[in-house]
C-alpha cells in the first residue's frame, strides 16, 4: 500500500539571542531567568527582529534551493495556550521566507520537495504536575524558551517510509550543520509528521522531539494503521501524540475547539526586503554544501561515489577529517576506504559520533604509513587497530606497540620462532623433506600464529632452514 509521509520540522537556530528580544538563548538551569518583558508578553512590550535569525533563514532558503519573495513580513497566529506569553505567535503566514525548494536523498537522489520555510518564535515549556497533559493537577511554566528562534521547514508528502523520513532528517540536519545555523549537539528539533496509507485519511503526530524519535513514531503509526486496515476498519483523520517512553502514538482525544488562527499582519514589525542585492550578499556566505562536496571529493581525490557519499553524509567532521588526512598522505582512496568502511562502521556499532573520537589526522595517517612500510599488515590495521582506536581513543601507533601488532622483520627473531616451530612439528618437517612441498605452508601458518610477520619472509627463511 502506498505510504505518504510529510514532515513539518521546527529547528532551533543557533543565535546568541532570541528572535524578538535580547535575552540569551543558552539553556539555563534556573527557570524564568533568561526572560524580559517581550518574551514574557508583558503589556506594552514590543518585538525586535534579530538580524542573524533573518540571515539564517535566507541561508537555509538558498541552500534548499527555494524561491524567495521580494518582500516578506510577519503574521500573528492567535490561539490560547499557557506556554504562549501573548496567546499569539509571531510567525509567517502569507509570505514565508521561502517556498518550493528540494532536498535530494539517498543513492537514487530522490527529490523531497520543500513546500515552505518560515521563521517564527518558540513558546515556553510546560511541566504537567501530578499527571500528563490530560489529567495533571496543574501546570508549571518556564518561559526561558519563549522567543527562541525557530526555522519551520515543511515538506510535501513525498516520503515513502519511516526510514526515508529518517534519511531525510539526517540530510536536513547535515545541511543545517554545514550552514552553521543549527547546533547539532545542543539545538532542539521538533517535528510534526503526517502519514497516510493507500490514499486514506491523514493522521498527524504532533510534537515529536528529536530526529531519532521521528522514525520510531512513524514506524509504530504505520503498523497501527496497517493493523486497523486489516480489520477493515477505517483510519480516522486525527491528531496523535508520540509517547517516547512507550514508543506508541496516542490519540489526544481532546475536544479541541477548532482553532481559528485569524491571521493578521504583525503590526509591531516592519516589512523586510529580499532584494537581489541582499540575497547575493548572503549567498556569498554559504559554504560548500554536502552535495557539492561529494562531487568535489570524487573529482579531487578520485574517490568512488559510495565512499564519497558515506564520508560526506556521515557528518561534517568526518569529511573535514578525511580532507585533512589527505593533505598529509597521498593515497586518498586508502584513507577514504578506511574512514568510510572501518571507522564509520565502528562508530555506528557503538552509537558514537566522530566528534567523540578525538583522533588527530597525523595519528591516523601514521597508521597508513605503517602499513605502507609493511610494519603492520593491512588486515590488522583495519580489523584490529582501527577498532581499538574507536573503542579506547588511543593513538594507532600506541595501540600497535602495546598489542605487538608490528610485523616482525628482525630475521633473528623470526629464525628463532621458525626453529621452535620446526622442533615442535617434526612430522610435518619430515613430510616436507620427503618431497611434500605444500607442507611448508602449514609451518608458515604456525609461525604466523606465533608472531606478526610477513608470510613471504617466513617462507624464504624456512626454505633456507630446511634446505
Amino acid at each position, binding site marked *: 500500500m502506498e505510504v505518504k509521509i510529510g514532515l513539518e520540522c521546527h529547528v532551533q537556530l543557533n543565535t546568541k539571542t532570541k528572535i524578538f528580544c535580547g535575552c540569551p538563548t543558552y539553556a539555563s538551569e534556573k527557570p524564568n531567568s533568561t526572560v524580559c518583558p517581550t518574551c514574557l508578553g508583558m503589556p506594552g512590550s514590543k518585538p525586535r527582529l534579530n538580524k542573524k535569525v533573518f540571515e539564517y533563514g535566507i541561508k537555509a532558503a538558498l541552500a534548499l534551493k527555494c524561491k524567495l519573495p521580494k518582500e516578506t513580513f510577519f503574521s500573528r497566529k492567535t490561539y490560547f495556550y499557557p506556554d504562549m506569553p501573548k496567546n499569539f505567535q509571531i510567525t509567517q503566514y502569507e509570505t514565508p521566507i521561502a517556498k518550493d525548494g528540494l532536498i535530494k536523498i539517498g543513492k537514487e537522489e530522490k527529490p523531497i520537495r520543500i513546500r515552505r520555510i518560515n521563521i517564527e518564535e518558540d513558546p515556553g515549556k510546560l511541566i504537567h504536575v501530578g499527571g500528563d497533559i490530560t489529567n495533571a493537577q496543574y501546570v508549571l511554566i*518556564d518561559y526561558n524558551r519563549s522567543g527562541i528562534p525557530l526555522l519551520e521547514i515543511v515538506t510535501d508528502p513525498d516520503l515513502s517510509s519511516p526510514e526515508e523520513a529518517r534519511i531525510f532528517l539526517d540530510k536536513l540536519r547535515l545541511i543545517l550543520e554545514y550552514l552553521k545555523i543549527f547546533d547539532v549537539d545542543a539545538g532542539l528539533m521538533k517535528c510534526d509528521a503526517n502519514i497516510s496509507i493507500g490514499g486514506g485519511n491523514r493522521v498527524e503526530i504532533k510534537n515529536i522531539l528529536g530526529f531519532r524519535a521521528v522514525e520510531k513514531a512513524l514506524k509504530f503509526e504505520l503498523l497501527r494503521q496497517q493493523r486497523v486496515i486489516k480489520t477493515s476498519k477505517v483510519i480516522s483523520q486525527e491528531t496523535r501524540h508520540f509517547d517516547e517512553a512507550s514508543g506508541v502514538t496516542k490519540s489526544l482525544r481532546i475536544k479541541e475547539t477548532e482553532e481559528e488562527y485569524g491571521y493578521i499582519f504583525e503590526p509591531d*514589525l516592519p516589512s523586510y526586503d529580499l532584494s537581489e542585492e541582499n540575497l547575493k550578499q548572503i549567498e556569498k556566505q554559504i559554504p560548500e554544501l554536502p552535495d557539492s562536496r561529494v562531487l568535489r571529493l570524487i573529482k579531487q581525490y578520485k574517490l568512488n561515489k559510495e565512499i564519497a557519499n558515506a564520508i560526506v553524509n556521515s557528518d561534517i567532521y568526518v569529511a573535514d577529517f578525511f580532507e585533512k588526512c589527505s593533505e598529509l598522505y597521498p593515497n586518498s582512496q586508502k584513507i577514504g576506504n578506511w574512514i568510510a568502511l572501518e571507522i564509520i562502521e565502528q562508530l555506528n556499532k557503538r552509537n558514537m559520533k566522530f566528534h567523540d573520537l578525538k583522533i588527530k589526522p597525523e595519528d591516523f595517517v601514521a597508521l597508513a604509513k605503517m602499513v605502507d612500510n609493511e610494519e603492520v599488515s593491512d588486515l590488522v590495521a583495519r580489523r584490529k587497530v582501527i577498532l581499538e582506536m574507536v573503542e579506547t581513543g588511543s593513538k594507532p601507533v600506541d595501540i600497535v606497540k602495546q598489542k605487538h601488532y608490528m610485523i616482525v622483520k628482525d630475521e633473528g627473531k623470526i629464525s628463532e620462532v621458525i626453529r621452535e616451530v620446526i622442533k615442535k612439528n617434526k612430522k610435518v618437517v619430515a613430510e616436507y623433506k620427503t618431497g611434500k612441498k605444500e607442507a611448508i605452508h602449514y609451518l608458515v601458518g604456525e609461525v604466523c600464529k606465533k608472531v606478526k610477520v610477513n608470510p613471504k619472509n617466513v617462507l624464504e627463511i624456512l626454505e633456507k632452514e630446511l634446505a
Partner: protein
Amino acid sequence: MDIEHVSKIARLKLSESEKKKFSKELEDILNYFKLIDKVDTKNVEPSFHAIKIKDVFREDNPEQCLNEKEVFKNAKEHEKGFFKSPRVV
C-alpha cells in the same frame, strides 16, 4: 455571525443576556461595515502601516534580562521559580 462560536474562539464566556444584547448590536455594526463594499479596491495594495516602514533589525547581542523579583512582581501564584496555570486539557 455565530456569536457562540466566535466568543469561544476568543475565550470569552458570555451570559445569555449578553449574547442576546450583543447579537443585535453586532448585527447593526456589521451591516454598517458593509459600507466598505462600495469602494473599488481592485489592484490596490493593503497598507499595513500608515507610513512605509522597512528593514529594522536588532544585532544579535545579549541584553539585560529581568531579575526574579521583576519577573514575578505581578504574579499571584508561582512555585519554585515557575509560573502556574490550570491544566491544559
